């Protein structure tokens, strides 16, 4: 790809980027949120037409107007956001756009058999006949990968494929990637997990602010170097641990169950503490968090805040009890895309900002300005529509939104998923400052280094059940994995 530029209204997402990937190699693209990684790959896969620039495949210049054009050339992309059809079956999704035919009809048997084989190879235990919408996000992510893989591509682009995968599944994915590499397939791999990049990549390209900074073989590059190139300066500690004094329990849950996905979940969170909630994908962490926050219903158990029992049936009750929740699916549950950053931030506290039901604009502006500055949201313009921000900045705005409600317990569900290192460090800094001020934080994360880095205690979930909390001093990657996979029963 030569001289690729892409201008969105209001944003120049890419300027004059040159990028090339060789057959039989894994080429990683790294960069901060909004650096333009996804946009570049969407150009390659025919989703976007570049404003300027040309693309060559196998030495021939090609012009792709729609994804189908790219697919004809053997280019397949696993999108950062799930791109599946909830109302079709898993097998149909895997073969979407290229279902096998027998005469005029769909060859169902071939389709199901093929899907089952691919899924098995990926190590995913998913019924090909299940309706896709009934699967969890991570299972859907696996289907998405299976879909690209099953198409026998010549070039495959994976945009953050592991953000919702467990280490297990990641390992299975890497096995497949190596196999594909051996078959001479060109692989583009985008990830914010630099460890993965180091593990799998042959070449690395670093993007910053829509421009290519460097493209080089991965041999000999270190994470620190990459980070420096990504953010333009040195970053020392990726997972800082701010010391804080731990106080009395703020949130106590006992024997929670929803009758479907989890049961008998109990834990405490104390003031000034970060409690990690980890486990394999689909262990039920999100469901627990949603239930505590009143987004789904509990069938068993009790919740106490500050020693007082509370009933929570809706988010506003949870908010009154001092609980806040930053959801996992930022695009789906986090932001109101049509509203400005300011309007997003003040949403939960509108009533407080209102007199005689009129929202005080000055109070509203003050609030937004404060958080925009505190969290250095880029661009620092609260009147900008939030969907024009990059993922990391959106995440900061969502966290600000909940801090504006002044909660005593903050539940963060995968707060740094798909967020670049810079923004990640900053989110960690913000969390650190919050606990230092005495807030109790529950952090759901699948990224073990992160969990080990910032949490004071960790609860591991497996199959809808929670282990007792493990103190920081007893934590190790092996221990958590053992609990998460059921090799050790606590």
């Amino acid at each position, binding site marked *: 790809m030569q001289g690729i530029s892409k201008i969105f209204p209001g944003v120049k997402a890419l300027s004059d980027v040159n990028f090339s990937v060789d057959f039989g190699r894994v080429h990683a693209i790294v960069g901060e949120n909004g650096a333009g990684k996804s946009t570049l790959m969407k150009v390659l896969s025919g989703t976007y037409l570049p404003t300027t620039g040309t693309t060559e495949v196998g030495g021939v210049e090609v012009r792709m107007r729609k994804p189908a054009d790219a697919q004809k050339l053997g280019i397949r992309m696993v999108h950062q956001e799930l791109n599946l059809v909830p109302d079709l079956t898993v097998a149909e999704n895997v073969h979407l756009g290229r279902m096998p035919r027998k005469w005029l009809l769909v060859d169902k048997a071939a389709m199901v058999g093929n899907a089952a084989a691919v899924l098995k190879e990926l190590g995913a235990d998913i019924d090909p006949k299940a309706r896709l919408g009934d699967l969890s996000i991570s299972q859907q992510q696996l289907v998405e990968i299976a879909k690209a893989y099953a198409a026998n591509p010549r070039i495959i682009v994976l945009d953050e494929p592991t953000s919702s995968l467990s280490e297990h599944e990641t390992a299975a994915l890497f096995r497949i990637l190596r196999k594909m590499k051996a078959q001479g397939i060109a692989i583009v791999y985008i990830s914010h997990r630099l460890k993965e990049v180091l593990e799998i990549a042959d070449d690395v390209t670093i993007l910053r*602010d829509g421009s290519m900074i460097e493209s080089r073989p991965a041999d000999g590059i270190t994470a620190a170097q990459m980070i420096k190139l990504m953010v333009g300066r040195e970053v020392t500690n990726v997972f800082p641990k701010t010391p804080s004094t731990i106080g009395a329990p703020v949130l106590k849950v006992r024997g929670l169950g929803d009758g479907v996905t989890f049961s008998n979940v109990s834990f405490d969170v104390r003031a000034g503490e970060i409690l990690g909630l980890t486990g394999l994908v689909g262990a039920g962490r999100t469901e627990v968090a949603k239930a505590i*926050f009143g987004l789904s219903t509990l069938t068993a158990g009790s919740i106490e805040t500050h020693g007082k029992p509370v009933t929570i049936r809706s988010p506003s009750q949870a908010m009154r009890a001092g609980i806040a929740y930053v959801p996992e699916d930022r695009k*789906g549950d986090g932001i109101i895309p049509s*509203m400005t950053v300011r309007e997003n931030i003040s*949403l939960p506290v509108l009533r407080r900002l209102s007199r005689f*039901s*009129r929202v005080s604009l000055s109070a509203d502006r003050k609030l937004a300005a404060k958080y925009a500055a505190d969290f250095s949201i880029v*661009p620092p313009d609260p009147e900008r529509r939030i969907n*024009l921000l990059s993922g990391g900045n959106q995440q900061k705005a969502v966290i600000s939104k909940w801090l504006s409600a002044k909660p005593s317990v903050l539940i963060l569900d995968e707060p740094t998923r798909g967020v670049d290192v810079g923004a990640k460090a900053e989110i960690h800094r913000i969390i650190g400052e919050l606990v230092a001020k005495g807030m109790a934080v529950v952090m759901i994360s699948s990224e073990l280094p992160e969990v080990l880095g910032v949490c004071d205690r960790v609860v591991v979930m497996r199959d809808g059940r929670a282990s007792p909390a493990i103190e920081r001093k007893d934590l190790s990657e092996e221990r958590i994995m053992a609990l998460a996979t059921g090799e050790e029963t606590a």
Partner: protein
Amino acid sequence: MTDIALSMQDRTNPRFNRGSRLVDTVSRAGLLIAILAVVLYGALASPVFFTTGNLVNVLTSMAIVGIVVVGMTFVLVVGGLADLSVPATIACGAILSLALQPMIGPVPAFVLAVALAGACGLVNGLLVGYVGINPIIATLGVGTIVLGIVQAAVGGVIVYGTDPATAALVKSRVLGIPTIALIFLAIALIGNFVLSRSFWGRWTIATGGNYSAAEASAVPVRAVKAGAFIITALCSGLSGALLGLTLQSARPLVGTGYEFSAITAVVVGGVSIMGGFGSVPRAIAGLVFVQLLTNVMVLQGVRTPVQGFILGLLIAIAVALDVALRKRGVA
């Protein structure tokens, strides 16, 4: 760490600008220009267009459907697609406000009529907001049922007014402005306050913009969604009651067609049917445009089918233009 924060802050990058504002202004101005064009054409083409009498007529004709438009704006903004039960709630307001007069007096009849219309809205709201049924289906069903009940209740005939004083009141003028137009103005002001200034309005926009995110932001989404339908029903109940009092007679089918007129106005005003965006002034600008255009066409003696044709074409063009503009602004 702080150096990152700092450097990110001074990244006031030329890559970013505010695309959306510009488009907003353009699309708003577009409608104003269109209105001006119609006014200009009207003034040139018809000597009577610019008479007070004619403009007052336009205002009066606008009032009844205008009140419904205010409500319908909420439905569209909250992402409720459309309220098709408007004809039924209008009939409810018109018939009850007249039929109950002899029994309980004009004022209680009026209040009760509007309240009962609101109750229909409550049913819509419960079905859409709490049960989660598609608004088109829910309001279609409820509308059919309510209209059926209303017809059964009056035995299917016309109900006449018994208190001419009330008719005189709604037909009166204050400083040359028809009372009914003033009522419309008041409703519009209230509607605008609620949608654009109050927390409820912000909630409405948020719910329409992204339902689950609003829910996860402690917005009582179900109530907000239901609320939009109740507001619309109250508005159309009020509109129906006023209609009944002006005409001093009401049939079950008085409200036919008002739902489409209201949706047309709101949509021409550039309020997105997908929700999350829109305001009462915009919707009213759409209404003013449609009404003025119709008025000019009538004054020019354009035949009814041709009027319908032009109106249909206009809706299509207005919305297509709006979409095009918006796409250029924000993808």
